[in-house]
């Protein structure tokens, strides 16, 4: 799964990054073509940089997020990450719900920690 997942993810992310770069590089070039007529009392170039460009970035971010979730669903990856339901990180397994930390999950194989976690007394 992993290989095809990444191949497909790379293609999609390539498009998103290309669009992001196009916005960043192309925005000043596009702004130079705007007409000087005021729009609702503001210069078009000001409106473009204050609203147009930020909204373009926001839309790209949301499209990417949606694309990512669709991609994950296609490859049957849990979009809620499992870890949210379990309230613990998935692979590290360092912080289970009962706060008995498995410290060795933080360290390379064969190098086990000699002590336990400090425990949990949180507000």
């Amino acid at each position: 799964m992993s290989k095809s997942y990444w191949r497909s993810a790379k293609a999609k992310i390539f498009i998103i990054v290309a669009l992001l770069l196009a916005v960043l590089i192309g925005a000043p070039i596009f702004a130079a073509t705007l007409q000087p007529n005021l729009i609702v009392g503001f210069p078009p170039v000001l409106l473009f940089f204050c609203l147009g460009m930020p909204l373009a970035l926001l839309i790209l971010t949301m499209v990417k997020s949606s694309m990512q979730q669709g991609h994950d669903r296609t490859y049957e990856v849990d979009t809620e990450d499992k870890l949210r339901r379990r309230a613990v990180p998935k692979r590290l397994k360092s912080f289970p719900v009962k706060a008995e930390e498995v410290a060795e999950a933080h360290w390379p194989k064969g190098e086990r920690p000699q002590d336990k976690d400090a425990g949990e007394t949180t507000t």
Partner: protein
Amino acid sequence: MIRLKILNAFFFGTIVLLCILGLLERLGLSGDLVARMLFALALVYTLFAGIRARSVQTNNMFVDGYRMTPLPNGLAMAMVVTGALGYSFWPGAVYANQIGGLVVPLGVMGGLALMGALFVPHLRRADVLTPMEFLQQRFSSRILLLLATALSAISIILVLVGQVSFLSGLSARFTTAEPEAALLVILIGVALPLVLGGMRAASWLQMTMAILAGFGFLLFLSWMAMDVSGFPIPYLMASDALSATKLLQEDAVVRGIAQVSDTYWLELVPTNWRIISLSLLGLAVGVSAFPPLLARSQTARSSKESDASIAWAIIFLTALICTLPIYAIFLRLQLTEFLTGLSVADLSRSAPFLFDIKSGLSLCGAAISDAQGAIAACGEGARLSATDLSISPAAFMTIVPDLLVGMGREIPQTISAMLACGALASLIAVVSACFISLAHHLALDLYGKFLGRNAPMSRVVFLVRVSVLLVAVGTYWLLTWPPFATYLKTPETLILAGFAVAAGGLFPVFVLGIWSQRAGKIAACVALLVGSGTTIAVLGALLGVDGFAQVAFSINTLLGADYPIAAAGIPGAVVGVFIGFSFARLAPVKLDNQIIERLSGA
């Protein structure tokens, strides 16, 4: 949800408190006392953050227990990326450079979008405590961990020093305290909550300070709108204010006082689009790999919510970017009304406050010293226009209240002090992010992973607390060490240099770590070394450091003499990514760890 409820309580509690303070001021409470109470409010917020977030649990110290919901996380992320630079510098940059002043905030926003696209969800799925731990696990290399941590620390320290540099102007304007004493109070005030709660406390600090900063920023602007137009919603009145300014300028042109170009203020399209594009791109790449922001994105509950956090941060930044020109528009209108037609010879009588402010102002291109100096700069018998008075962007937010008072406006002390309080809050937020990231580097990345690999997590957690104090003391020592002052550049230059280091050194390694399944530690180390080396050489050349003359000559030849410092990280990032992928292609490595599977959520 509890966090949102507490934040709501903070929000409405602050409104009530401000109303009470305003009322007390009307009833005769001294303005000085109001200012002190507002500064005390900021410190009470930091104390609250520390008490609320106190914890000894490991994941609270590093990733806020993976509890952050998107809206608060986005708010905190926007606050970190804005900081004192955004609060104190960006409005002044728009006033001074018009559309060009929007380049840095837009580049920062692009960086968040790029970070969301390339790194955030996959990094969150890796379930690591710090971004550097991801690199160590992904490439199984302690050397890479050491190099990346050192580079990250350099990047963070540059940004930290740049942000803290704004404090000196603020303390000189609003307090009678020595700058060193003010610095010490702020650093201790930030460090104590972090000692108690680590990243959890940093989250609370950033969220609560964002509320304070938002109030400070908007309240003053609303007052300006109310003063000018009689309506307190500046967004609705800005176009009228801009039209009025244009009419005044056109009248001044007819009277022979102003230039025709002055009437196109905020309307002119920047002609140097190449520089702007490069700056936007360089900033975006740097911000996307800036470790405190990556660490902040890791506190989300899931990869989906880390994506949503980025979207919220972009929404908050959009609101800020829309507000920046409005600040400039209202001040420009007031200055145009006041200054147009004033005789320079008469300035000591008609505008004596200009000679009292001095620092940060220049008239006719020369720093303001006295009436004779002004006459010498502008010419005998010259009449002024608004364009003749320049305001340093770095001092903009501290000077504006003085300018308005000098022009005869009566600003309520509550509003003026709240403006300063917001600047302080924005500083506290960004300093907390830098402190906790540096402490994580010292305790986990360097001690826990590099030096004492068998160290128990309880010791690492204890070291995080100690490291926060060490970082605070180190920052104070560095900033008050006299020889260091000789190396200091302007705050904005330091911050841009910090992002450039992240772009050149860290960006290629994170790209390789996530998007190449064949890159091994050699490829990563080479990419990091080549990328960071290139960036440091470019930075040295652009900053005019001795020994980089040859590089400066090459940059001038290849990239142009006006190559911006904001884009200093681009060559390093491009070279680093190219070399890293080339190594991965030529000498692919089959990794036996499972982190690549985890990145895809498998």
